[in-house]
C-alpha cells in the first residue's frame, strides 16, 4: 500500500467519484455559494479544512469508541455529534488564534456544520474500510473534489451572469442546467479507475 493506493484514492475522489458531481452530496452549498468566485473559494477552503478534520476524528471515534463496544449502529448519531462540536470548536479557536482566517472562513463554518458532504465523507471512510492514513488522504481528496466542482461552477456562473440568456432560463434554471451538464461531463471519468 502503499503509495500507489493513496494516489489512486486521490485520483478517484477528485475526478471519478467526485463527491458533488457523482455522488450528489453537498448540493446545497454547491448551488448556494457558487454565485461568486470569491465566496466559492472561501467555502472550498473551509470545506477542505473541516472535512479532513471531521473524517479523521470520526474515524478515530468509530474505531476506538464505537467498535470496541459493538455500537456501530450509532455511527450516524455519533458523527453528527462529532462534526457539530468539532466545527464549533474550530470556530472558537480560530476566532482567537487567527482573526484573519476567521474573517475569511468565519461565515462558512456554521454552514458546514450541517453539510451532508462532510457527513458523507465520514461515513464513506468507514464504509470503504479505509485504514487511518487512507481515511486522511481520502477526506482531503474528497474535499478537493468538492472544491473543484464548486470553483468550476462558480466560474461558469460568473460568465453566464454576464451573457445574454433567455429570460425563461435565467437564475436557478440555468444554474441547475449547468450543474447537470458538469455532472454529465464528470461521468466521463467513470470506470477509469477503481479501488
Amino acid at each position, binding site marked *: 500500500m502503499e503509495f500507489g493506493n493513496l494516489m489512486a484514492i486521490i485520483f478517484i475522489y477528485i475526478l471519478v467519484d467526485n463527491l458533488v458531481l457523482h455522488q450528489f452530496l453537498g448540493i446545497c452549498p454547491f448551488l448556494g455559494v457558487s454565485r461568486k468566485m470569491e465566496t466559492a473559494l472561501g467555502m472550498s477552503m473551509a470545506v477542505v479544512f473541516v472535512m479532513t478534520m471531521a473524517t479523521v476524528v470520526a474515524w478515530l*471515534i468509530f474505531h476506538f*469508541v*464505537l467498535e470496541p*463496544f*459493538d*455500537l456501530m449502529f*450509532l455511527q450516524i*448519531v*455519533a458523527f453528527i*455529534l*462529532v462534526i457539530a*462540536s468539532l466545527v*464549533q*470548536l474550530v470556530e*472558537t*479557536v480560530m*476566532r*482567537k*488564534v487567527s482573526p484573519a482566517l476567521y474573517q475569511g472562513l468565519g461565515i462558512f463554518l456554521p454552514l458546514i456544520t450541517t453539510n451532508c458532504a462532510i457527513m458523507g465523507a465520514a461515513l464513506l471512510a468507514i464504509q470503504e474500510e479505509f485504514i487511518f492514513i487512507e481515511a486522511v488522504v481520502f477526506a482531503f481528496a474528497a474535499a478537493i473534489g468538492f472544491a473543484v466542482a464548486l470553483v468550476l461552477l462558480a466560474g461558469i456562473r460568473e460568465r453566464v451572469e*454576464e*451573457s*445574454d440568456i433567455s429570460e425563461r432560463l435565467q437564475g436557478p434554471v440555468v444554474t441547475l442546467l449547468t450543474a447537470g451538464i458538469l455532472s454529465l461531463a464528470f461521468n466521463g471519468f467513470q470506470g477509469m479507475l477503481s479501488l
Partner: protein
Amino acid sequence: MEEIKVEVLLQAALALGGLGAIFGILLSVAARVFAVEVDERVEQISEVLPGANCGACGYAGCNNFAEAVCSGNADVGGCIPGGKDTVSEICQILGKEGVESVPKKAVVFCDGDRQTAVERFVYDGSPSCKHADKMGGGFKACAYGCLGLGDCVEACPFGAMKMGDNGLPLIDEEACEGCGVCANYCPRGIIGMIPRDYRNKLVMCNSRDRGKSVVKACPVGCNGCKACTKACPQEAITMEDNLAVIDVDKCDGCGECVAKCKQGAIKALGEQHAAVEKLPRLKLRKLRK
C-alpha cells in the same frame, strides 16, 4: 420481533451521553480559554445602523463600520443612509457630541434618452454599462452620457432605482437613502449626490466635450457656452472642463440660467425630457442613425 436487550440500550445511552459530555466540556473550556473580548458598544451600534450593508461608509458592512467607529477609525457621521437619527444614536452610545450630516440623494446628470442622444452603432453585447462602455467607447455618440443598461439599478441596495422606458434610470426620491453606491457603479461617473431637499435647477449633463461636438451628439447637452455663468446673479455657476456646474449651496432658484441656456440643459429634477419638446425642430431631425 427481536428482543430488545437492556444492556445494549444502556451501553448506547452511556456511549453517546459520554461523548456528548466530553464534547460539551471541551467546548465550554475552549470558549473560556479562547474567549475574545468584544466591545459591547460594537453590538449596540450595529443595532442602530440600518443593516443594509450598502458599503457607503467605505467598510464591508454595517458590522465592520460599527467596529471602526468604536476603535475611532471611522467618523461617527459615516453612515449616510442612517441619517441624523443614526448619528445621534451612535453619539449617545459613544458619549460624543453630535456631528451634522446632510442627507443626500442621487441624481443622474444626463438627459440624453434613447430618443434624444445619437447612437453610433447598435450594441448587442452583454447588458452591462461597464462592458458597453469598454466597447469602442460606448454606443452613444456622447462619450459621457448614460448608456442606460442599468448597472446602477442593479447596484442600488435599497431598490430605489429602476430603468425608465426612455433608457434613463429613474430614482425614487423617497426610497433613495443617498448611500452613493450607484455613483460608484456608474462607469461614466454620471450619477452625483446632492442634498436631499434641493429642489432648484441643475445642469443635466455630464459632457466635458466642447461646443459643436456636444450638440452633434446630443441636442440637450451642455456645450460650455458660458451664457449661464454670466447670467447667474448669485455667481453659483462655474465652468469645469466645458461643463457648467451649479453650486447647490449658492443657487437660490431664480431661473435666470434656464432662460439663457440655448441647449435646454438646465432644469429642475422631474423636468427632464420636457425641455426636449421645446427645442427647435431642426435639432431633433433624424439625429438617430
